[in-house]
């Protein structure tokens, strides 16, 4: 079964179009959405929750069409974290707990305070006095405390220090140890996605550029640093894009199509993304 199924999704804004996006996230897996600013990541997340109106397309979440009436029930099982955590400014965590108790049927108070403890969040401090990291940790605590089976996380690790980010990644990893649980997560910090995702999807200018198993992706491509003459043996169809400097060439290549004599380094998701978009556009200019 798929946790999320998106088919031919279209959303137009003035100057922006989410263009016919389709992908699937099988249950029990983690998908990372990678994209530059304004690529359509947050729009996609909001459309998954049906919190903005689409122009066309179908979205099924945990097997339920998200425009149907029964989606209200399914929402109980979805934990959402948006990039700006928004709780009323004057509330403290205890009061947030009281509101959530009445919002979610499956609210788990003990678990919530467990996370508060684990993240060392002060329960008496009001929300507006929280730091950015604390706000994010509070949102994540809420998302994980109502028996969610799916987490929809928009930039949950941005603005957080490396130790907290690692802790959050551990918690997310732990969450999908249960094969009923799935996550879709977006981040600019592609290193975070690389650590936990099973699938990676690239969004660029409203289009889904690729959607692939992470490890396949990382093996399919390679980075070559070479002098011009060394680079001569790389066939044209092996080169995805390249960056030329006065001293040589850096390129993203298809590993299989590149001669074995050329030294290929393992790329990061960031390498692949930047080479695919930034340098490719420059190459064609």
């Amino acid at each position, binding site marked *: 079964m798929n946790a999320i199924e998106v088919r031919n999704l279209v959303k137009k804004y003035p100057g922006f179009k989410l263009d016919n996006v389709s992908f699937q996230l099988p249950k*029990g*897996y983690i998908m990372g959405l990678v994209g530059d600013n304004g690529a359509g990541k947050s729009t996609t997340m909001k459309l998954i929750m049906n919190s903005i109106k689409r122009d066309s397309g179908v979205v099924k979440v945990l097997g339920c069409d998200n425009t149907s009436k029964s989606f209200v029930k399914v929402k109980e099982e979805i934990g959402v974290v948006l990039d700006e955590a928004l709780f009323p400014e004057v509330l403290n965590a205890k009061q947030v707990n009281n509101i959530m108790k009445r919002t979610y049927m499956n609210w788990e108070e003990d678990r919530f305070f467990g996370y508060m403890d684990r993240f060392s969040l002060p329960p008496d401090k009001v929300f507006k006095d929280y730091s950015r990291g604390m706000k994010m940790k509070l949102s994540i605590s809420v998302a994980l405390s109502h028996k969610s089976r799916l987490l929809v996380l928009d930039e949950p690790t941005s603005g957080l220090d490396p130790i907290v980010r690692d802790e959050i990644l551990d918690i997310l*990893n*732990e969450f*999908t*140890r249960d*094969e009923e649980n799935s996550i879709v997560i977006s981040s600019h910090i592609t290193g975070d996605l690389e*650590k*936990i*995702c*099973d*699938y990676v999807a690239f969004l660029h200018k409203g289009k889904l550029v690729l959607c692939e*198993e*992470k*490890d396949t992706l990382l*093996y399919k491509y390679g980075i070559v640093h070479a002098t011009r003459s060394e680079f001569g043996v790389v066939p044209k169809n092996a080169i995805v894009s390249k960056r030329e400097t006065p001293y040589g060439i850096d390129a993203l290549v298809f590993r299989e199509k590149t001669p*074995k*004599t050329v030294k*290929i380094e*393992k790329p990061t998701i960031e390498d692949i993304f930047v080479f695919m978009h930034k340098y490719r556009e420059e190459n064609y200019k």
Partner: protein
Amino acid sequence: MDISISNTSEMPIYEQIYNQIKAQIMQGRLLEGEALPSIRSLAKDLRISVITTKRAYDELEKDGFIYTVLGKGCFVSKRNVELIREAHLKEIEEFMKKIIDLASVIDLTKEEIIEMFNILYEVDKE
């Protein structure tokens, strides 16, 4: 069970897992009938993709090193001497292919390779 994943290795991750588990079975460090960690917990502990772990297990099962009991998990198969020999032969063949590839890059002839091999072999025997 020891498994270490190297990010600098050119070998795909699933192959690294495959090789390490296979080696431990062949060396008798993993015994017949012994349970392997579940795909999901191995993936989560190693912080690698579930898909990759599954592929490694699938390959191990396909090649007869482990078997799956539905709902119970994966176990080490009975050690089959013929099978292991076969696996070794296959691996040696792979290396030889690699030697041929490398040799052709620097125009080394078959005779020269054989001579090199004979010398190395003698040195090793002594």
